[in-house]
């Protein structure tokens, strides 16, 4: 379970100044590992891309951290962001398909891959601010969608669509996943 709500993230220490990237050193880890669960231990470090800047809010920084780590490790966020702007789910679905988000993240938001894993987005708990940052700036091999190809309004709608998608089910409820 990952909690990336802004209230939680804002309580974290400020990110280090970005140059070649931010080193999330051990002082960051108690909070982050509490969020990310057993996949990481307190003595692990990860270098985040330079798009994590000092001017970015903690919410966005943590959202991107979760995004990156979910891509590297293949796990998803669970909690819903509570601060999302209202959006048009139907239009969000249409735009999500039109601009090819689904090609990597799946029509059901189940995730996928390009050259690197593309994390699941169904029921995303990534705060909208972080979500927008990732879409606009991108990372690794993800396309960066600027306003010319994806308006702010459509971005809001896509976010609403993703949050409307059915999330995970207990794997034990699906017999063939029991083995």
């Amino acid at each position: 379970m990952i909690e990336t709500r802004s209230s939680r993230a804002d309580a974290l220490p400020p990110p280090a100044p970005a140059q070649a990237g931010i080193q999330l050193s051990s002082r960051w880890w108690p909070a982050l590992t509490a969020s990310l669960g057993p996949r990481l231990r307190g003595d692990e470090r990860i270098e985040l891309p330079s798009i994590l800047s000092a001017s970015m809010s903690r919410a966005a920084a943590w959202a991107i951290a979760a995004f990156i780590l979910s891509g590297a490790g293949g796990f998803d966020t669970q909690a819903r962001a509570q601060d999302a702007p209202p959006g048009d789910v139907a239009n969000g679905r249409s735009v999500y398909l039109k601009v090819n988000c689904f090609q990597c993240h799946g029509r059901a938001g189940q995730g996928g891959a390009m050259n690197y894993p593309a994390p699941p987005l169904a029921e995303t708990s990534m705060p909208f601010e972080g979500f927008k940052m990732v879409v606009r700036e991108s990372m690794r091999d993800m396309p960066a969608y600027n306003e010319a190809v994806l308006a702010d309004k459509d971005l809001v709608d896509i976010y609403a669509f993703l949050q409307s998608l059915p999330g995970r089910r207990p794997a034990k409820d699906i017999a063939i996943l029991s083995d």
Partner: protein
Amino acid sequence: MKRRSNSPDVARRNFLKGASVAGAAALAAPTAANAIPAPPQPKLKATLPGPLQIAADTQPPNKDPATQTTSGGDFMVDVLKTLEIDYLAMNCASSFRGLHEAIINGENNKLEILTCPHEEIAVAMAHGYAKIEGKPMAMICHGVVGLQHATMAMYNAWCDRVPIYVMGGNIVEANKRMAGAEWVHSAIDIGALTRDFTKWDDQPTSLQHFAESAVRAYKIAMTPPMGPVLLSLDAELQENPIQEAETLRIPKLAKVAPPQGDSGMIAEAAKLLAGAENPVIICDRLARTPAGLARLVELAETLQCAVIDNAGRMNFPARHPLNMSFRRGPVLSQADVILALEMNDLWGVLNQFSDRIVRSYRQVYKKDAKVVTLGSRDLYLKANYQDFARFQEVDLAIAGDGEASLPALTEAVKRLIDEGRKSAYDARGKKLAAARLAMIEQAKSDATLGWDATPITTARMCAEVYAQIKDEDWSLVGNAIRNVWPLRLWDIKKSYQWNGSSGGAGVGYNAPASVGAALANKRHGRLTVAFGGDGDLMFVPGTLWTAAHHRIPLLYVVHNNRAYHQEVMYLTAMAARHGRGVENAHIGTTLTDPNIDYATVARGFGVYGEGPITDPKELAPAIERALAVVKRGEPALIDVVTDPR
């Protein structure tokens, strides 16, 4: 080069030439109108020769005999029989008609011909076969146009370090070529086309030369680092009668011992590994034989260390508690010693690439970590094609076959383990095992996302197949690009349950390689399944006919996303970079309008076909029906319309 005019049959006629001319002179009847009348002929006791006999005896000596009793092709078959080659994949061609005839009619020939409607199919079948069976299949083609068709598949095999025994027919002597096709199908040096991605090639000029080169080629192909080899076979050499058969000798094929790493360097590597706090093993094309799998497990369990498997071979059990292949970021970030076994692109694993306008890499391991490589890659490289990947700075570079060198390394590590270290290792292993269990549960949870969606998710497609084969002696021999679900969900643990990938990422590999692997599995009675992309199958659809024709049992599941999907994503990225037209990325990258009905395509080739399946609820019954076909010894195809990845 021996020529027809020097063949024993012709020589015998030459020997008779003088006598024939003399007889003709004696028997020739005068024809001139004003000829002097001949004296009366004495009555002959024997019957006069008929007109055919007269013609035969009075015409110039026959330089074009119609029959022969031996051929170079017969000898070539004798040579190939000694090489433990069971199959010859081919698309028939006149430049090897001599050898072809000798194979189908020769005595005690064990080579079985596999008829392939494209040379790329033939080579890729050999590719998939070799990785399951551990030895090469032979392939033969026209040395010019057929070899040009074969090249992509040969490049894949080269990149994947797989032995394939390729032969190409050629007509070396210009004055022996028929006008037209034989000129455009001949070359001075057919091997020039593929020399950048074959280990060795030759164009024998005599049968003894062929025998020696044939055995040499096999030995070179099978010596790590393995790779494809090529023999150019002159048509005259194949077709002409054998001369001086008593002088021909087939060299003995020696057992090949793979090179092992230097013992001093192995000891040094063992010391680093044994003393490390967080050693990590990374491997790619390590396991050449089932022993490779067992040996890696033994080393990993001795150290209780993380293993990252790049899955170029069946190196390490997918569910092993130490398998951290899907947790490589955190594992590498902590590693203090990294052992890379038979890695091709170590840089690509130790650095993360950012495909932005300014392309960049970021190191993902600690700067003071020690890196040790053990592999045969450096023993044979070529310069032109860049499949050797970016240079990775390391601390110890041990040249030697990984599988062959592992026992010595493991024993050296064991000698350094005391009780204190063993306790630390056990604690390390327990942490990793707990993480592995969490990864498996995470994979199952991820698989539930979109479980009932249409198009069908790749997770559901893979889970449905596994549910019906997991209690059989199954073998997964092919996989679609970036389909991670078998490795995340399936209990892949036996040496033949995973067969790597193409090596060169050349499309058109997966379907024929899967059929070749299925052929290898057939004799072992294994249930063979494969996933493959629709784009891949469209390169080589004729593969299905070969599978049907040769009764090769295989369940082939088409991961049909109706696109060359990687390119859809790349084009989207390019359009987004320009801030325009991302919605146009389907142009030139998708396989729609009309949608392709692969089940119908399969049926057209004589293969059982199911689909297109779009409702996930229809998947399990379709798999059940298709598996029934496979279990009675035939191929079957299921067309599953899926989400892109």
